[in-house]
């Protein structure tokens, strides 16, 4: 070892970052080299002098409080540790991406015991990771962070819902959730159903707060407080974000009503419409290009099939939709492109299908994504690259070991 090398490594040596063998080498060089020894001594002296700066300062009392409040709110926990009710609405028409994860308060008790986290909770995390893996722009926020002033009533219930209503999915999903953690595909199944267009969604506007038990009111107050804590801070660092949208469009009203319905259904066997805070997704919808259809077919069938297009055109549109964040539409278009060129260009068709899997998964349509992957495996058994991509998109979803089988629960 020469002086130059030694010089480069003296700091690493001083901070213990060298592997033992290399450390020994440097030390033996330093032992025989006056210049390097002098340099090392200077470093050591400076570190000795600076030692008081390493001592920890203690944060002032009360430092933890609002952080822990926010953490509990994030964990969907009330301070007293009881689980907050959560409703998940499937069949998204717009990308959930990380929002889905953020919207999921995982309102569970602490882990342990037999309070296993339901699968759908896990899936939300999957959706998030897929969106991240797809390199898509994601916005991290929370339902808790977007409490607009126009809603004087904040629902005591965390609604975990995609950006648009899917009434059939809601109805189908709810009983399953009442019955306890759904089986592996229990909550996925509703996603297969075609979501109803926004305009057809029930327009049940909230009809004000209904009388609730005192305990429920208390719990709500607590949650609101927690939510406000988070909200306060979000405003700090997302100053460039647009102000909360008012629920002016029929779409967002419908969404609110839909969520409210879900909320009430969850907490009460006799559903009663009630206003819930709009999710961040509302904002995203409002800022999306108006020309984009609010909904796209969830399952099968081509989009805008009246206009015949080539596979290339479909792929191009899919790519555009994907960049725009309209994953469900992108997934559908990719699937159509794949079908068109299945015979002529199997390799590209396989990739289209793999992209369809990625997009459907990112759009929250896990069941469809799984079905498309199955299609991919069956139709293009020798296309390992696309298959790996599809598997990667679904890496957190339990896939059936047997490729021939449709994924079923358990």
């Amino acid at each position: 070892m020469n002086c130059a090398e030694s010089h480069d490594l003296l700091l690493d040596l001083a901070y213990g970052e060298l592997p033992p063998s290399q450390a020994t080498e440097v030390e033996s060089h330093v032992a025989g080299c006056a210049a390097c020894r002098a340099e090392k001594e200077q470093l050591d002296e400076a570190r000795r002098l600076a030692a008081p700066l390493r001592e920890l300062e203690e944060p002032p009392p009360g430092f933890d409080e609002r952080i822990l409040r926010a953490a509990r709110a994030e964990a969907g926990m009330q301070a007293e540790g009881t689980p907050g009710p959560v409703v998940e609405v499937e069949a998204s028409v717009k990308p959930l991406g990380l929002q889905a994860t953020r919207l999921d308060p995982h309102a569970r008790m602490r882990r342990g015991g037999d309070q296993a986290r339901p699968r759908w909770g896990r899936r939300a995390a999957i959706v998030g990771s897929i969106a991240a893996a797809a390199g898509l722009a994601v916005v991290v926020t929370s339902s808790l962070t977007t409490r607009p002033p126009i809603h004087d009533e904040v629902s005591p219930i965390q609604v975990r819902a995609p950006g648009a209503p899917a009434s059939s999915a809601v109805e189908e999903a709810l009983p399953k959730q009442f019955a306890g953690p759904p089986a592996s595909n229990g909550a996925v199944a509703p996603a297969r159903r075609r979501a109803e267009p926004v305009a057809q969604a029930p327009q049940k506007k909230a009809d004000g707060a209904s009388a609730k038990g005192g305990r429920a009111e208390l719990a709500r107050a607590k949650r609101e407080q927690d939510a406000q804590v988070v909200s306060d801070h979000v405003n700090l660092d997302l100053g460039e974000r647009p102000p909360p949208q008012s629920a002016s469009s029929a779409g967002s009203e419908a969404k609110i009503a839909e969520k409210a319905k879900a909320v009430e259904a969850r907490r009460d066997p006799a559903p009663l419409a009630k206003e819930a805070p709009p999710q961040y997704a509302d904002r995203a919808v409002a800022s999306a290009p108006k020309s984009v259809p609010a909904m796209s077919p969830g399952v099968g069938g081509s989009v805008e099939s009246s206009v015949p297009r080539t596979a290339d055109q479909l792929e191009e549109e899919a790519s555009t939709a994907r960049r725009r964040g309209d994953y469900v539409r992108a997934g559908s278009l990719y699937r159509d492109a794949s079908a068109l060129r299945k015979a002529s260009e199997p390799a590209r068709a396989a990739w289209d299908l793999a992209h369809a899997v990625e997009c459907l998964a990112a759009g929250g349509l896990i069941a469809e994504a799984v079905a498309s992957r199955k299609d991919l495996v069956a139709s293009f058994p020798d296309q390992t690259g696309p298959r790996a991509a599809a598997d990667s998109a679904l890496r957190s979803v339990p896939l059936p070991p047997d490729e021939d089988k449709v994924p079923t629960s358990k």
Partner: protein
Amino acid sequence: MASERTDEELLAEFQQGDAGAFERLLRRHRGPLYTFFVRMLGDRARAEDLAQETFLRIVKGSASWEHRARFQTWLYTIARNLCVDASRRDRFRRTESLDAQEGEEGPLVDAVPSDGAMPDRAAQSARLRPLLQRALLALPAEQREVFVLREQAGLPFKEIAELVSANENTVKSRMRYALEGLRKALASEGVTGDDAEPEPEPPPGVRLGRA
């Protein structure tokens, strides 16, 4: 130590809805993080605000955190960005902060604790710290951050390089300048290595904040 869960494990548990796991993470990192801001800004009130803000961002971003990333790197990336923002916002206030710092801790000479029972070393440390803090604040910010991240947060140079978007050699150069700058600043106050603590802290593998 073996049974101690890693930061990453705790965060994963928090992602699963266990707020208690986050509490443990907080207890582990609150001191070091707060100290990081104190050292960087020389202002306790702002250090408190920004350290809280950092943790709140962790809370908010936890759902999107991926297990591949090291928690501590993430934590200090946020912290460092907040520092950058803060210093951009009020570049002019920096000298005021320095004055406030001095006012808070008292003039250097008077900072010697009167408590005679205080051990020599602690007394010396208490005497030197305000001096060091001022010298640290007088360093260019990019040297200061490297110094604090390495000395106090205990991040390896490689991670610091990623965190500040510079190459590792640049980071090490800044570290040398920082150490040399501190040494000279103390020397100009008549403090030399003889006055310092007898030995450097054992650095290898020791991460602050694992208490």
